[in-house]
């Protein structure tokens, strides 16, 4: 988790935050059985904003972003995504999921489909894109993540870094306006981490709204508009990276930062 992971320069990438709200969580509560995992979460994300979420293991980071595309169901409070309320209405859920892409720690590529088919599956079946069109788009995206030559291979034949890049391309193929990342680099070997972070930096440069759960503090410093620190199901502190790293407010944050930067 060294700050040197990104070899290119360290200056912060300019952001283009509009004042359009794309995600709004208010008083969101969630329980697993008796266990209170999200406590009164309030969070507003503006269009084009890039948010990094960090916090100790088990603090509810994954749960939080998984609530945003309804991989988990929250029990209290409201979640609005792109103005659509997250409730039990299947139409709403579909609409939200179409606009929100997600990248998982363990890639979750479909092993029975080629890389290209992985990227065209959703456009063809959800967006009714013609195949030729979908293929073209997918190839563009694969070029963007720098692996166009792997299009015909199966996921099992790729290295971890390549697989994660395919996963990003696959999400982008649905042309989402929000991307969620859940520890996208933590299953990777050190050499491969930078490959994937490079792609994510590129994405940030293009103005995508991003929520990233990660412990890559170099990435956070360089890309994030806001860093959110969670513990025990709460948002303890949120701030710009500069303030967050240099001037943390809460004692909990300080403790966490001292641990994570000790490596």
């Amino acid at each position: 988790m060294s700050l040197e992971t990104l070899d290119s320069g360290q200056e912060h990438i300019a952001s283009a935050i509009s004042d359009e709200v794309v995600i709004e969580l208010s008083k969101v509560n969630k329980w697993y059985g008796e266990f209170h995992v999200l406590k009164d979460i309030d969070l507003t994300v503006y269009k084009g904003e890039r948010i990094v979420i960090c916090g100790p293991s088990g603090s509810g980071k994954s749960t939080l972003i998984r609530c945003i595309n309804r991989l988990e169901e929250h029990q209290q409070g409201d979640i609005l995504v792109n103005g659509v309320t997250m409730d039990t209405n299947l139409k709403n859920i579909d609409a939200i999921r179409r606009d929100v892409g997600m990248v998982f720690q363990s890639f979750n590529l479909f092993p029975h489909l080629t890389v290209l088919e992985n990227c065209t599956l959703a456009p063809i079946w959800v967006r009714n894109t013609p195949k030729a069109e979908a293929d073209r788009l997918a190839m563009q995206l694969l070029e963007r993540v720098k692996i166009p030559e792997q299009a015909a291979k199966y996921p099992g034949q790729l290295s971890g870094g390549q697989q994660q890049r395919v996963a990003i391309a696959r999400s982008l193929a649905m042309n989402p306006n929000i991307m969620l990342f859940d520890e996208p680099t933590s299953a990777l070997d050190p050499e491969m981490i930078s490959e994937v972070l490079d792609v994510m930096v590129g994405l940030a440069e293009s103005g995508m709204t991003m929520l990233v759960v990660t412990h890559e503090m170099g990435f956070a410093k360089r890309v994030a508009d806001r860093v959110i620190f969670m513990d025990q199901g709460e948002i303890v502190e949120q701030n710009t990276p500069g303030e967050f790293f240099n001037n943390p407010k809460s004692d909990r944050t300080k403790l966490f930062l001292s641990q994570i930067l000790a490596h």
Partner: protein
Amino acid sequence: MAVLEKGSPRRQSRSIIEWLNDERVRSVLYQAIVAIAVIAVARYLFVNTSENLQARGMSSGFDFLSGTAGFSIAWTVLPYEAGDSYFRVYLVGIVNTLIVSLVAIVFATLLGFIMGIMRLSKNWLISKIAAWYVEILRNTPLLLQILFWFLAVFSLLPPPRGSFGLLDMFFLNNRGFYMPAPVPGAGFDYTMIAILLAIAATYAVAVWAKKRQMATGQQFHTFWVGLGILFGLPILVFLATGSPLSFDFAALKGFNFQGGVSVPPAFCALLLALMIYHSAFMAEAVRAGILSVSHGQTEAAYSLGLRPGMTLRLVIIPQAMRAVVPPMISNWMNVVKNSSLAIAIGYPDLVAVYMQTSLNQSGHAIEIVAMVMLFYMSVSLTISMALNYYNKLVQLKER
């Protein structure tokens, strides 16, 4: 240790001990011993057998196959009369075995899928019911289950006079299940042609729909349209040509229903028992197969916006099949083998008519048992060849 000259002690004459220590010699030796032992045992058995046959005045050879069997068989698919030969009995038995196994395989597979999916249902009650279904069926002997279906269900159906009837066309009673038999009249050929055409057309529509989707992205309700063509076209032609098909309805005459097509209760009971017993095993295969696809796959599909149905069809099932099919196919094999328990309730399968009745009548134990084994082995070989082929087909590409 002195400095060695190159290749010094290689070619020296070797003692017996040394010779016996040679890997290759040993390998040949072991194999020779095994081969000799096997051949000796085989010869011993063969000699004994021929002596025994002679001593007991029993004949051997396959001449008996052309002899008259003399007994009749309750229900056959192939035409058969008491005057036919033993070889005919063999064939009749094979076909009877295959018929009941094939039908059982089809239904057991369907039921297995339903039960396997039920067991994974979020509804606690349903998944528990499925779980107990599997446990109860897997843990009681099939033989008992066959007897149960036969004695406690099919034997308790009403007699022919009180049959359960449906539309006066289908009847179920303790003599079996009766259906109308179609009797094609003049001009029915056209309907047949229409059926073939409809199949071709459905296929064409499917291909076209796929193409169109690929080209324009539009999805098409192939299934419903196909269904329409498949049934609509033949019915139209059928009506247009003046309905040239009559049915031979089963009707109560004398003791029983006459005419139509019928299957005896033993068939129904055996079918049901095999189907239900094996569906429990198949349900397990299905469950294991689906569970073998990690939950991450579902989540990934959902987060791409795929709906549950599509996720199942495009992502989960293709991957699950890889794990489901091999145990499923060996289960099919077991259905065929287990159909031999038909003997307990009098369904005339191969073992019942050939290894039991024919063997008893003719006394040609060795030939008959060998022929029966040959049949089962060919089935098993065919199935395992199919399995290997499938495994090759679906192997995941790895680095």
